[in-house]
């Protein structure tokens, strides 16, 4: 056999092994839903699902890095609200050109997201605060700041360019979904192909071994939170553009839980060391389809959490089985 083709086969099998389960589950779920409900299978509905999951999906991509490095980030939902609120306030403060205002908002949202992530990273890496505690603290802080600057209500803009960008559809696919896909490709490469990605997995697998291998474990952990914060900032920008407003009370609420669930459903190990960005994308799509189809079936919104919770538990149980 040609060495090239064995290489290709090997790559395909590794890819399937690491991400195959969640994608297979996604395909089955899609088929079942498409067959059982004609409204579900309309193109418009499918596009809507991808748009709905894209905001928490972006956050889930960043969360994959934090979990791969053996950490957890509970603050990303609040960080989305905070950077969203401040970026719209910033946008409204820019006189004249609407395009310039959007550019300012974009810089603010991404920079604030990165800064929030950096704060988390510094607490964990330098302050040696356990990730759960550190990000629980910043979860409360970011939300409180969002409420303070947003006067506990909706922060809106009248910027038409922002609305257009937020609602833009390119080739039938909404802009946030494009960004989700592009970032999935890029971040998957970062995790699998770069030194940073390798070091993140090493630190998550066994931090002591990583330290003995002269890896700068603190810096590596810092980067994971920086990435997570940045994805929250990007998400905030797109999220605000959808309705040209951000609610300081409800924006990003419990997104961190959806993101964590997506990472886990996507086959990454909660203990760190093993992670797949493509798996996370499948995870977020599964979550989106489940809540959408429950809507279609007329199941009460209050009960949907129960089903979602069960999906998470069953997904993880199935993965444990296949791992053994």
């Amino acid at each position, binding site marked *: 056999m040609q060495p090239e083709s064995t290489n290709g086969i090997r790559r395909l099998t590794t890819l399937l092994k690491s991400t195959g389960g969640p994608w297979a589950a996604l395909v089955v779920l899609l088929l079942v839903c498409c067959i059982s409900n004609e409204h579900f299978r309309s193109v418009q509905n499918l596009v809507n699902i991808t748009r709905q999951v894209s905001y928490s999906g972006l956050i889930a991509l960043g969360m994959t890095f934090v979990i791969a490095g053996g950490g957890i980030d509970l603050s990303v939902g609040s960080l989305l609200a905070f950077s969203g609120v401040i970026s719209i306030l910033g946008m409204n403060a820019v006189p004249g050109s609407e395009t310039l205002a959007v550019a300012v908002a974009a810089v603010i949202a991404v920079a604030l997201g990165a800064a929030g992530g950096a704060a988390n990273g510094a607490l964990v890496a330098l302050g040696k605060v356990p990730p759960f505690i550190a990000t629980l603290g910043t979860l409360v802080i970011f939300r409180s700041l969002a409420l303070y600057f947003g006067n506990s209500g909706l922060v809106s803009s009248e910027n038409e360019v922002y609305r257009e960008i937020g609602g833009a559809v390119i080739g039938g696919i909404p802009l946030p979904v494009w960004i989700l896909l592009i970032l999935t490709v890029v971040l998957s490469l970062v995790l699998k192909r770069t030194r940073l990605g390798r070091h993140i997995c*090493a630190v998550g697998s066994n931090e002591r*071994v990583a330290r003995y291998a*002269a890896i700068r474990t603190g810096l590596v952990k810092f980067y994971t939170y920086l990435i997570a914060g940045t994805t929250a900032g990007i998400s905030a920008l797109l999220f605000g553009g959808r309705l040209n407003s951000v609610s300081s009370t409800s924006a990003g609420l419990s997104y961190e839980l959806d993101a964590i669930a997506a990472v886990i459903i996507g086959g990454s190990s909660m203990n760190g060391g093993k992670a797949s960005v493509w798996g996370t994308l499948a995870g977020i799509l599964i979550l989106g389809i489940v809540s959408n189809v429950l809507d279609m079936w007329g199941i009460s919104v209050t009960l949907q959490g129960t089903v979602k919770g069960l999906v998470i538990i069953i997904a993880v149980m199935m993965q444990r089985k296949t791992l053994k």
Partner: protein
Amino acid sequence: MESELLLRTEGVRKSFEGTPVLSGISLELRAGEILGLVGENGAGKSTFVKCLLGLHRPDSGSITFLGRDLLRTGPAGIAAIPQEFNLVKDLTVAENIFLGREPGRFGFLNRSLMRSESRRLLQKLDVEIDPERKIDSLSVAEKQMVEIAKALSVDCRLLIMDEPTTVLNQKESAILFRIMRELKAGGTSILFISHRLEEIRTICDRVAVLRDGVLVSCDPAESLDAMEIARRMVGRELKQMFPPTVPPSGPPLLTVENLSSGKEVKHVSFELQAGITGLAGLAGAGRTELAETICALRKRSSGSVKLAGETLHLRKPADALAHGIVYLSEDRQGSGILTEFPLDRNVTLSSLRRYCHAGIINREAERACAESYVKKFRIKTASLETELKYLSGGNQQKVALAKCLDNCPRVFLFDEPTRGVDIGARSDLYEFIRELAASGVACLLISSDLEEIIGMCDRVLVMRAGELAGTLEKEHVTEEEIMYLATGVN
């Protein structure tokens, strides 16, 4: 008079994913007998033990223990001291000893009983460990003693010891042997696994030799010498165990001056030249801590480190590595290798920069590098992608070594490099250390195995209680002089 038959295995077979690991093991063990079990890494010793403990189910064959079918009744009456520690890090010594069978009433623990019982057990082993200490704070040898105490705290008819002495010094080993003889006198049988053939010969009644999953022989210990056991294990004639020494020579490569770190390392000064220098001392003398301080893995409270006369400012482990100072850890699974990572990614873990361009890993170059080490060290593995947890201890150690070596070392600190490594792989390692030293690398060999220190080194540093107790050269490198310096008593 023949004593009672305790254990009988007949034709025990076990394969993993089509690879036979045990090919029909039949042996008997009588009450009050110490049976030595030897074999190279991967010969099937650990798998056999796991079958006895009910952790693996044999594919075929039978195991009878005390007249009952062990596979049905379970391994009650068998206790084991595992090869890798099985202790909960965050619990105390006493809590670990009684883990899972804590004494008490109505769900409340009887802490004072746990403490006093633990103290009694540890005193029996002649070790001073406070039962209230956390496992995390213990040295490797102390952890081993706790494992032994834990096994002894259960009433058992058969005690399985999987390489219990690898981390113990001679004094500690002697205590262990005394306990073993006491147990034997009380009618307990012991299955004793070790790579140290001399001790196998002294302590065991019979010696069973495994090779590639087959029981090669099972003969009385007095009829065998160490060389004969080794020959049966390997299945071929062995060369001289230790290669010719490489005495330190040339200008000093590494100069350590007045180095201190907390209470563990106190004002240590020495020089390393190209060649092999030994570092001996009792467990807890600060040898590992000294090596870790040199590599900036541990905070230095005073002193300096010079490389070829130039003072180094080592603030983080990467600094030491950048200057070619590498450290092979004694704690293979805890700080040496990533057991959940594939082989190739372990090899390049600390040298990944060399296989990257602008941060992107060149997988082909990385795999080629791992491949070359697999060949060079004869690492037995299914593929380069195999996770290290599926490799035997000796092969894991070779990967750990490859990882260190891939950083172009100028100074190589080996900490217990042959711990838990079988005789065949061990002579590979010795030969490799010799080659490295002969090529001009300054090698420091830290070892608790005096035979190894004496066989490998012409110059030996000895540490005692964090200080450098003395340096021995040439004909002074003897067991007596090392122990004298290590213990401070004649």
